[in-house]
């Protein structure tokens, strides 16, 4: 049998119909929805007199517009309230699981999918959100879709898809202390460009990837879309199986063993061919900071804001000029001289327990800079929030001058009232630094949680490698591990 990649194995296992010259019909194992992109899909289903084929395979969460302050208060934004009501009504009408804003399992859809075990290796997972690529960390084929496709999946539990090309991204060696999964993926995007992965599904391999926790792998897969590839994947291994075991929606006992045996068969066969291969050496990587208005406009923290004339392509020159004007940055400025107004630790990229532990270790016993207007920590889910509180992380953040909030997408996209004001500059652990992303006229610098935490303390970017960090194992208080029961 021809050796196959992880992607090809999952693709083959989900083929419902194929015909030469046409897209294939592939089966979708899990469908995640949220309030922002689903109402029109349900409306379409109803208008056409159709129904939801497998409601038990769709899971809904309220995340994009939820308040991270007091949920007991009424939702003041009538449009957001309308979307919440529509989601609740649609889920009830069609029998879809909903984690609403008051559920103790509520959170960003890409955080709760994995933590509840809804996300599993070998699955096909889609969601009307481009950061669905996150779930590929488990060796699932997961990608974002538009609202028409949400409707399609609701009605048929299938998607019509052309097979993608494959791209192997091999990250060799070991990363330095203070260099995180976020820095690796930012370095990859910097290298291939934000369109470098267009038309491809990426698979991350190599020692540095194998050495990452599931949280780290999720961070990498999450930002795969920022490099243009719709999906990023990591072959499941012992780290994956250990993470899966005991989670609410994961098979138990003998069934779990059956599942693990299947998951083990998913890894890319030796000799399988990729359409493209990219190689990075982890030891050469440093903490990364974006300077422009897309995630590919990124450099090492020890570097300087580039001169637009240093780009060969005139199109890139023009884009860099425009970006620097928007960001109000001068070429040649050392990245560490850039001061920030606000710090945001959160989003589907970096809001999991490991991220919060890492940031907490940096800020423990210190205080945010006086010049800072706001420092926000927004856990990715209410489970993460409870776990962090059980470890005393909330107290560390509060003592250091951070705000400790409820779970949601928050300032990554600014659809609730967590908005970065015009002209202000953030250090943000989120995924997009597009113009206006965090608020009209706002200026975003993407960094890792360690870097964001250190920037909060100093008021400007610093090289966290010079600090005593790498706090993934940081647990100041006692940990409770009985959160798996719902």
């Amino acid at each position, binding site marked *: 049998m021809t050796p196959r990649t992880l992607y090809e194995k999952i693709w083959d296992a989900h083929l419902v119909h194929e015909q030469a010259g046409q897209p294939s019909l592939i089966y979708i194992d899990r469908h995640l929805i949220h309030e922002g992109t689903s109402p029109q899909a349900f409306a379409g289903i109803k208008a056409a007199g*159709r129904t939801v084929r497998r409601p038990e395979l769709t899971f809904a969460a309220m995340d994009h517009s939820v308040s991270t302050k007091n949920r007991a208060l009424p939702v003041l934004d009538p449009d957001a309230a309308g979307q919440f009501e*529509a989601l*609740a009504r649609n889920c009830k009408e069609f029998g879809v699981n909903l984690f609403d804003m008051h559920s103790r399992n509520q959170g960003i859809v890409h955080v709760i999918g994995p933590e509840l075990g809804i996300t599993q290796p070998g699955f096909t997972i889609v969601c009307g959100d481009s950061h669905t690529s996150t779930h590929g960390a488990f060796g699932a084929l997961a990608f974002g879709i*538009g609202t028409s496709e949400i409707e399609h999946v609701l009605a048929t539990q*299938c998607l019509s898809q052309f097979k993608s090309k494959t791209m192997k991204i091999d990250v060799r060696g070991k990363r330095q202390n203070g260099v995180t999964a976020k820095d690796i993926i930012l370095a990859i995007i910097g290298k291939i460009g934000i369109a470098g992965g267009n038309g491809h599904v990426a698979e991350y391999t190599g020692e540095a990837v194998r050495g990452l926790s599931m949280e780290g792998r999720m961070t990498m897969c999450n930002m795969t*879309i920022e490099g243009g590839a719709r999906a990023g994947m990591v072959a499941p291994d012992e780290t994956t199986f250990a993470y899966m075991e005991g989670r609410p929606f994961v*098979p138990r006992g003998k069934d779990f063993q059956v599942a693990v045996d299947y998951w083990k068969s998913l890894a890319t066969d030796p000799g399988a061919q990729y359409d493209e291969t990219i190689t990075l050496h982890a030891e050469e990587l440093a903490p990364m900071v974006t300077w422009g208005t*897309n995630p590919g406009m990124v450099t090492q923290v020890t570097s300087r804001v580039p001169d637009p004339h240093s780009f060969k392509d005139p199109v890139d020159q023009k884009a860099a000029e425009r970006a620097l004007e928007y960001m109000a940055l001068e070429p040649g400025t050392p990245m560490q001289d850039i001061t920030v107004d606000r710090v945001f630790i959160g989003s589907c990229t970096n809001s999991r327990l490991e991220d919060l532990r890492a940031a907490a270790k940096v800020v423990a016993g210190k205080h945010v800079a006086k010049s800072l207007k706001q420092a926000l920590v927004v856990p990715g889910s209410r489970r993460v929030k409870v776990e962090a509180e059980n470890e005393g992380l909330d107290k560390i953040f509060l003592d250091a001058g951070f705000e400790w909030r409820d779970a949601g997408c928050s300032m990554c996209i600014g*659809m609730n009232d967590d908005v970065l004001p015009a002209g202000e500059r953030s250090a943000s652990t989120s995924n997009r630094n597009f113009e*206006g992303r965090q608020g009209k006229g706002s200026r975003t610098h993407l960094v890792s949680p360690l870097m964001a935490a250190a920037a909060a303390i100093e008021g400007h970017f610093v090289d966290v490698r010079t600090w005593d960090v790498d706090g993934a194992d940081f647990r100041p208080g006692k940990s409770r591990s009985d959160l798996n029961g719902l």
Partner: protein
Amino acid sequence: MEPFVKHTGLVAALDRVNVDTDQMVPKQFLKLQTRQGYGRVLFYDWRYLPGEKPNPEFVLNYPRYKAASIILARANFGCGSSREHAPWAILDYGFRAILAPSYADIFYNNCFKNGILPVTLTNDQMDELFRRTEKTEGYRLTVDLEQQIVTDEQGLRYSFTVDPFRRDCLLKGLDDIGLTLVHANEIAAFEKKGVRSPVMYQPVDVKFHREAT
């Protein structure tokens, strides 16, 4: 979906690379529940000054581009968020065809679901079209999907390729879901087949976990 066969119209030129869908429809407009009415907010932050006053410096506000129905763009058009609000806004504004050297995957796919034709041309061809559009006020193009050619009134003729299946769907304005449901028996057979352990398909204890309010 309205079919796309052939379209002739005024051309507007948006000379920016990597235009993301956050620019096409900023977040504050993602809270609506309709597919219509987004034309007004297309490129909102670029197009308007405070108070929704048109920004005279933004190309779509140039009087010469009023009523344009074809837009020229640069590489990686539509990158970022999967929001289908972006193509909805493009269509609602009045654009039927986009001409660019490349597109982001999700956006490209979303265009076909909404009767918009995203034509892919080479960088050189795009440069020429940008030149002609900027030089000639009232510059018009004809985009013919049946023949797979772009032509102007000065004799320019570029052919383009597009996936035959996508072309067919757009020419006929076919409903995707209807096409898939033709295979309903195969879907049902796949669900029963149990290639893998049943635990992979059936969430454990779903009823127990149901939280619908």
